[in-house]
């Protein structure tokens, strides 16, 4: 594997350039090949199959009726109130979750950027929710939300508020939202905290010397520098919340009365309860397209932000 060209002694600074010989190019592609091939086979082939499947009427319960329908599945979905409702719930859920995660995450990052004793321990504890399984997170919250012996109703009882059915039809959307926000705010905090640490101290000192108040320092020095990083956190959280599945599945499975039926659950149900694989494939493609559109819109915003 030793390529002879790498033994050439370097002459000067220009010699360093020669240390990266031509044979490195083939080495580079060789090193990249396994990753690229794996991704093509594991991710893009299924995606292509999904695209193809979505143009077929294909139900495992009625295999004889399999037929090409073109955009039939898409038209069915976009004219079916139940699926449209799922789309709407997903978008609303994502908007609320990401907004709350960004606001709380930024506040937490500013809080934990302060130097106080035990800071590292506190950071680790606050990160805990994002590292544990979504199944366990949701189960823990089921216990908290339990109508009879849940902690939440007990605490509310202390201040004189009567028990509520947190996972009932009225509150289920909000309750699931709370779990989502609780679990993934630490991710936003982490990214913003990292961003805060790249802001040069001199900049903040200078504004302090110039007599800027604490709020002015945040508003006019820190925040503008943070905007690209906050946007980046937003991109990630939006992408991941649009596909939410696990917490909803464990908390409510999309119910009661479809009040928490997000697209992720809708796809699963369509495929593995109704065995309508064609429709499930079309729903998947719709989810992907929505994700792409929103992500690309953010990216443009991010680039404009980076340029200005």
């Amino acid at each position: 594997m030793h390529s002879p060209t790498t033994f050439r002694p370097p002459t000067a600074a220009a010699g360093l350039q020669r240390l990266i010989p031509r044979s490195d190019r083939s080495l580079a592609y060789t090193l990249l090949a396994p990753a690229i091939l794996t991704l093509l086979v594991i991710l893009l082939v299924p995606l292509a199959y999904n695209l193809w499947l979505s143009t077929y009427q294909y139900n495992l319960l009625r295999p004889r009726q399999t037929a090409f329908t073109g955009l039939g599945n898409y038209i069915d979905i976009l004219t079916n109130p139940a699926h449209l409702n799922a789309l709407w719930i997903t978008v609303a859920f994502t908007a609320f979750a990401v907004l709350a995660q960004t606001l709380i995450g930024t506040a937490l990052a500013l809080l934990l950027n302060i130097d106080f004793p035990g800071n590292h321990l506190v950071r680790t504890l606050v990160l805990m929710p994002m590292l544990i399984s979504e199944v366990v997170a949701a189960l823990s919250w089921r216990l908290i939300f339990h109508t009879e012996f849940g902690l939440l109703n007990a605490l509310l009882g202390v201040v004189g508020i009567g028990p509520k059915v947190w996972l009932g039809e009225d509150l289920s959307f909000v309750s699931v939202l709370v779990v989502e926000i609780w679990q993934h705010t630490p991710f936003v905090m982490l990214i913003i905290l990292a961003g805060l640490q790249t802001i040069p101290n001199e900049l903040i000192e200078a504004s302090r010397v110039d007599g800027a108040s604490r709020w002015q320092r945040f508003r006019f020095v820190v925040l503008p520098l943070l905007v690209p990083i906050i946007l980046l956190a937003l991109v990630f959280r939006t992408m991941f919340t649009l596909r939410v599945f696990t917490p909803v599945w464990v908390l409510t499975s999309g119910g009661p009365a479809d009040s928490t039926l997000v697209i992720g659950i809708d796809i699963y149900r369509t495929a593995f309860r109704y065995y309508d694989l064609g429709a499930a494939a079309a729903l998947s493609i719709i989810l992907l397209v929505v994700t792409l559109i929103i992500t690309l819109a953010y990216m443009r915003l991010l680039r404009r932000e980076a340029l200005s």
Partner: protein
Amino acid sequence: MILLQRLEKVLLAVCIVVVVAVAVTPLAWMMLTSLKPSLIAVASPPQILFTPTLEHYIALFSGGDAGSTLGLAFVNSIVVTAVSMLLTIAIACPAAYALSRLRPAGTASLTVFIIGVRMLPPIVLVVPLFRFLQPLGLNDTYLALLVPYVGLSIPLAVWMLIGFFQNLPRELEEAAMIDGCGRLGAFWHVILPLAAPGMAATSIFTGLLAWNDLVFSLPLTTTRAVTMPVIAARMRVEEGVLWGQLGAVSTIMIVPVILLTFFVQRHIVSGIASGAVKG
């Protein structure tokens, strides 16, 4: 002025206590429930003082139908997580090295491709995988889980590793090459040992993906290859008796994660951060 500063300190302390309490309480409560005798676990109002018992852990692992399934799921989870971590790192490391150091023509678009596939929602892959694996009799096997886990972990791993490799001083590697190491030799003897902490952090993140996943394990496994999250998600019982066992399963799932977190805390923060901020 001093009073104001003191007030500020108190306010800060209160904020921190509240934040930590909100972050930790649900998990601590679940773990506490796993130690409660069955009757106390469902007491209303909730009890904090009780004589701890291991009955739920014993019940889980001592034979019976649920017991043997849980033992199997535990082993399955460990095997699937470990193998997917190893495969991912073996595939992602060379790629990340090539993209961060060798930078061949097309590096930018290849990076965008590899990292961009993270935009693909995993659930999009579920139906095709189910259809591909079924005729081969591969549903409900380790392979059914390893395929998507490795595929989805590679982008994350490459992204994190690029950050770590870029942080290593180029001079070390060049010195090794001047001393007669080839490119691969320098990678193997110099870069990999230096990047070990970063690789550990990366492995933990890819491992978490497999250890915690429900999106693939729920539809693609039924009995033989079930993992812990599937078992936990199936225990949807309203009769309070089983909350103790549910707590026990949850605790078994999170204790390794908590231990690892404390162990590599520093690298986790820098790992996510380096990829994110340097983009």
